[in-house]
């Protein structure tokens, strides 16, 4: 072994699937001085990779994970460490059958081969299954089994053979050193190990279940918990032995019991996600020396497995009855509060990267994604908004939150998770000052990364009859939904409504260098007169969307950035990271100091006019302008803008005045029958009718402002992040155009009226073919919802130009059925009030 070096470009801590894939991809992207350490031996250092079941079911409902999974399968195949016995998810309940139909839809979206099987067909492929127990199965023939340890060895060897990598197993990290940076985040400088200290420009924490402990050495948080996944190897089983191979029969996922049965040579590996959540603190995991097996193969707790044994016996009695339990572990894996991986630069320490909470199925893709991110400043493989570790607010990083949320979703590993699914635990963390009034009016709260936002108000139930709104027929379609939303929408359009917008994140940037700073960060020209507002894309270096938001010029040297709750933490990190090092701009998060009410509707000017000191006429207070004024003495910032399509203001005041502001507006609005309405109107129905785009849905780094229809006619002179690719995109004809579609017929084969939930349903041609644009991007539904005022159910999707023509007839697949749709608007012109007369008042 070579001497431990004193300096390197990057230290990768961890030689599990992620660390290994990362060093391989860094080497491929031109990093020539990489050092990898692991406290355990090679090739199995004793982390979760070493005991992984190593199978990959390619179908996921989410785009980001599906992309990473499919790319990982491709790379495993390229490495020659993959076999594809196929896999079958079996259903024991009708509800699960419906979920399998949803799986078929996602398979179609991502172009993965799949079919639904009858119990008899399942038995043909899996002769030892008890077909009476199941109602059917979802068969994906490309379900594969990989050798993750071998893949890691190959990638390490590749980087080592290129002369780019030195690997040090049995090397324990004792400290991660940082140094303060003037006007910036502290920066990582060195890693101290029991072999010596090494200085590094970048450090990557790819330590799986130990990641929180290593990150903490540098003062950073990686919010995950080690959790037990029980697994027992049972055998010998004759029919499996006879195959004479590692795996010949399809892997069976017994979805309703949260279990799987996977052939492992002559025996069966039975795994479970059904037992009680069992968490261990990273400090409690035994060392390699102390562990009886490996550190992450904890002692099996049989009593937690007994019920699962019965379930497994019920499904495969003929082979499992007499099978012996030969090896059984409480295997540790990493769980995160929202179930997603933790990738990217930590928010606390510059150049300290997290590559944690990654499953075998995503490993190579994640390695590539992170290597791209470290190399180019932003990944190309997939938009990382669901995996970026910066997505967590501070209040989401506590051990308590991690444990509560992980306990809640552990048993949903094989669960049926609705696209609008809400968390039950650790709620009421962030509430607005209006919260008591909202509760009084029967608010149904949805969680936005800890922020409680009324989605609708049961107190508005009377509006349903008034506006003749119909409920949805199928429970799945109306789950986490209410017809009250549509009624609230119509009330707003007819009269006036108040919307709590406090969850929006508000950042003030100010100082002598602020103009230069905002011009660099944002696409559209921000150097406008005080009182102006600028709606603008924020681009990633590749010219794709990093965010979209609104900037207000509050003073010569102060701008306020207003961005959504879901991406607020990521955006804050992005803005902080890019602050000039000379201290000429300061960043202040004023979210907690402020609260905001949107007042919109035809009667909004009359209502606000009763209590506001300012002249609200369109001439004195034009659309998109900002004024500081008072409402019955309360100091407010009023911003004439609307995301719902009717005129009005976003009225912001200090938190302590919030309740008074609410009560004042409510009292003034009594004569207009003002109603508080929920985010269901704001975020879905009102927005879709106006064709407004949403970050994380329509907007992501795969797509450019040109494709999203958000490019302005002119490009400002000032340089900004992503400018060059943005200019290039403007020169080309777009290969995809964001369109709004209407659903022409809602009736399914059983005669039921269906409403797609907007969970990445594929848009298909009339022949039922997938639609893929010239860059290989598939057309899927990015948002879906009612348009009560336009009398249609609306879908948004990017379509290639040949389909992006108003009036084009296409189909949407939902729950494995096809429904006709029509392109209503290819571009950004709203379906409701196309010339914005109502909007501008």
């Amino acid at each position, binding site marked *: 072994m070579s001497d431990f070096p004193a300096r390197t470009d990057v230290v990768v801590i961890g030689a599990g699937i992620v660390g290994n894939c990362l060093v391989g991809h860094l080497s491929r992207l031109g990093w020539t001085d990489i050092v990898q350490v692991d406290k355990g*031996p*090679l090739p199995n250092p004793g982390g979760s990779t070493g005991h992984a079941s190593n199978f990959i079911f390619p179908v996921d409902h989410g785009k980001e994970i599906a992309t990473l999974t499919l790319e990982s399968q491709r790379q495993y195949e390229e490495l020659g460490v993959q076999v594809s016995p196929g896999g079958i998810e079996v259903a024991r309940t009708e509800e699960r059958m419906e979920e399998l139909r949803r799986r078929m839809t996602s398979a179609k979206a991502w172009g993965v081969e799949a079919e639904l099987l009858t119990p008899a067909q399942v038995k043909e492929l899996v002769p030892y299954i008890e077909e009476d127990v199941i109602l059917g199965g979802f068969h994906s023939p490309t379900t594969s089994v990989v050798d993750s340890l071998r893949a890691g060895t190959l990638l390490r060897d590749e980087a080592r053979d290129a002369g780019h990598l030195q690997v040090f197993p049995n090397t324990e990290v004792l400290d991660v050193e940082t140094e303060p940076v003037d006007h910036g985040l502290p920066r990582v400088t060195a890693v101290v190990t029991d072999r010596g200290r090494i200085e590094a420009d970048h450090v990557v924490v790819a330590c799986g279940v130990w990641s929180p402990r290593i990150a903490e050495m540098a003062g950073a948080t990686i919010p995950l918990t080690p959790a037990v996944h029980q697994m027992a190897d049972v055998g010998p089983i004759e029919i499996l032995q006879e195959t004479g191979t590692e795996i010949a029969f399809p892997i069976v996922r017994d979805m309703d019991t949260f279990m799987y049965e996977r052939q492992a040579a002559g025996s069966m590996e039975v795994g479970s996600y059904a037992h009680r959540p069992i968490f261990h603190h990273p400090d409690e995991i035994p060392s390699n020396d102390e562990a009886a097996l490996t550190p992450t193969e904890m002692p099996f707790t049989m009593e937690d497995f007994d019920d699962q044994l019965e379930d497994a016996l019920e499904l495969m009695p003929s082979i499992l009855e007499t099978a012996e339990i030969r090896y059984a572990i409480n295997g540790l894996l990493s769980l995160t509060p929202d179930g997603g991986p933790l990738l990217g630069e930590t928010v606390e320490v510059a150049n300290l990267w997290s590559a944690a909470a990654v499953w075998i199925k995503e490993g190579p893709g994640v390695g590539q994604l992170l290597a791209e991110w470290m190399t180019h400043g932003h990944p190309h493989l997939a938009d990382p908004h669901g995996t970026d570790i910066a997505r967590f607010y501070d209040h989401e990083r506590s051990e308590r939150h991690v444990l509560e949320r992980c306990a809640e979703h552990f048993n949903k590993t094989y669960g049926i998770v609705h696209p609008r699914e809400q968390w039950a635990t650790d709620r009421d963390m962030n509430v607005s000052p209006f919260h008591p009034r909202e509760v009084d009016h029967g608010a149904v709260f949805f969680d936005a990364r800890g922020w409680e936002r009324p989605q609708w108000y049961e107190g508005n139930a009377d509006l349903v009859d008034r506006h003749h709104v119909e409920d949805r027929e199928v429970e799945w379609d109306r789950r986490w939904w209410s017809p009250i939303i549509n009624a609230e929408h119509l009330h707003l359009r007819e009269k006036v409504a108040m919307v709590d917008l406090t969850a929006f994140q508000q950042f003030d940037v100010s100082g002598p260098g602020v103009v230069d700073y905002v011009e660099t960060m944002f696409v559209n020209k921000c150097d406008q007169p005080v009182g102006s507002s600028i709606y603008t894309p924020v681009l990633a270096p590749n010219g794709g969307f990093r965010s979209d938001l609104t900037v207000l010029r509050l003073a010569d040297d102060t701008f306020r950035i207003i961005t959504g709750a879901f991406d607020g933490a990521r955006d804050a990190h992005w803005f902080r990271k890019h602050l000039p090092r000379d201290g000429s701009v300061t960043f202040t998060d004023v979210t907690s100091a402020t609260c905001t009410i949107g007042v919109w509707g035809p009667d909004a000017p009359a209502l606000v006019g009763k209590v506001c000191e300012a002249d609200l006429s369109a001439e004195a207070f034009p659309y998109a302008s900002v004024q500081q004024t008072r409402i019955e003495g309360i100091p407010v910032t009023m911003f004439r803008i609307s995301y719902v399509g009717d005129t009005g203001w976003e009225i912001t005041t200090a938190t302590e005045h919030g309740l008074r502001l609410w009560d004042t507006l409510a009292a003034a609005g009594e004569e207009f029958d003002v109603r508080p309405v929920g985010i269901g109107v704001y975020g879905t129905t009102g927005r879709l009718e106006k064709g407004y785009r949403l970050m994380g849905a329509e907007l992501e780094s795969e797509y450019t402002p040109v494709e999203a229809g958000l490019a302005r006619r002119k490009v400002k002179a000032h340089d900004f992040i992503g400018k060059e690719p943005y200019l290039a995109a403007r020169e080309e004809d777009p290969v995809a155009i964001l369109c709004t579609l209407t659903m022409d017929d809602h009736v399914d084969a059983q005669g039921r009226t269906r409403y797609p939930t907007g969970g990445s349903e594929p848009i298909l041609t009339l022949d039922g073919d997938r639609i893929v644009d010239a860059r290989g991007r598939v057309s899927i539904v990015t948002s879906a919802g009612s348009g009560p005022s336009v009398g249609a159910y609306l879908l948004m999707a990017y379509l290639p130009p040949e389909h992006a023509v108003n009036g084009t007839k296409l189909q949407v697949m939902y729950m494995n059925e096809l429904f006709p749709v029509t392109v209503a608007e290819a571009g950004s012109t709203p379906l409701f009030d196309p010339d914005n007369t109502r909007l501008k008042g």
Partner: protein
Amino acid sequence: MIVVFVETTAGDDGDVLAGPSRQALTLARSLDDDVVAVAVDDGEVDLDEVAEDAGRYGAVQLHGAWHDLLDRYGPESWAAALDGLVEELAPGVVLAAGTERGGEVLAHVAARRDLPLVANVTHAEADDAGWRLQRVRWGGSLFEHTRLEAERVLLTVQPHAVDAVEVVDPAAAELVEHDVELDDVVARTRVVEEVVTSTGVSLATAPVVVGGGRGVGSAEGFADLERLAGLLGGAVGCSRVATNNGWRPHRDQVGQTGTAIAPTIYIACGISGAIQHWAGAKSAKHVLAINTDAEANMVARADWAVVGDLHQVVPALVAAIEAR
């Protein structure tokens, strides 16, 4: 007085004490000058020769126990004989080597008298409050410090924990023969037959042990190890993986629950070095590890290592030795 129950063996120059008994005598000498050995006279052993060897390791007397029922080993008969002599000699301490027979006989003596017995002691000293002992647990992976209060102290000595040291100017121990009385019932646990199971070298006493583990891969894979052991006058051992996979009989297993070995050199081939295996191998004077993994525990514990595939290294070594 300390009584040491000794076992005998046939040496190159006549009957001598077994190695662990010599070690037990050496420990006894460190506790008391008055060390007396007790051996069973099975009618075959030449106790005069043994007395000479016992003297070399510090015994002033060798008491031989004789009875018709002692001609073949039996835990109850041998224990009854020792028990009788201990009663007669009335020592404060009785020691035996922590061998199969030593431990078994002394445990029977302890049970007969309901005296405490401390097994596998590595260090002993007495003070006013009684005895302070160090013994091994977990096959040697842990030391236990323990106190003992007893009217008579019964200890077995952990084999290979104490180096056997001869006295300066040795004199043969005085041989004292005893006809002991035994109850007929003790005959029920006498050996009725002795079957030769292996013509080779005994694993426990082999000067060279060639061990094979997971890396050997199959029963056939041990053929090269057999040849190497044969060339070196040694025995083949194995790890638990090899017995569990049915590649070797259990009697070849080296480890905490298998055989403890103490060869001049242990050549460990494709053995990762789990603690339970090491517990049986730690008394080897030298270790040579042959392993593909330079980071394996066995390599870390070895004096010498060859990094490589045993299926290439061992045949090459065999060929090189045969070519000499």
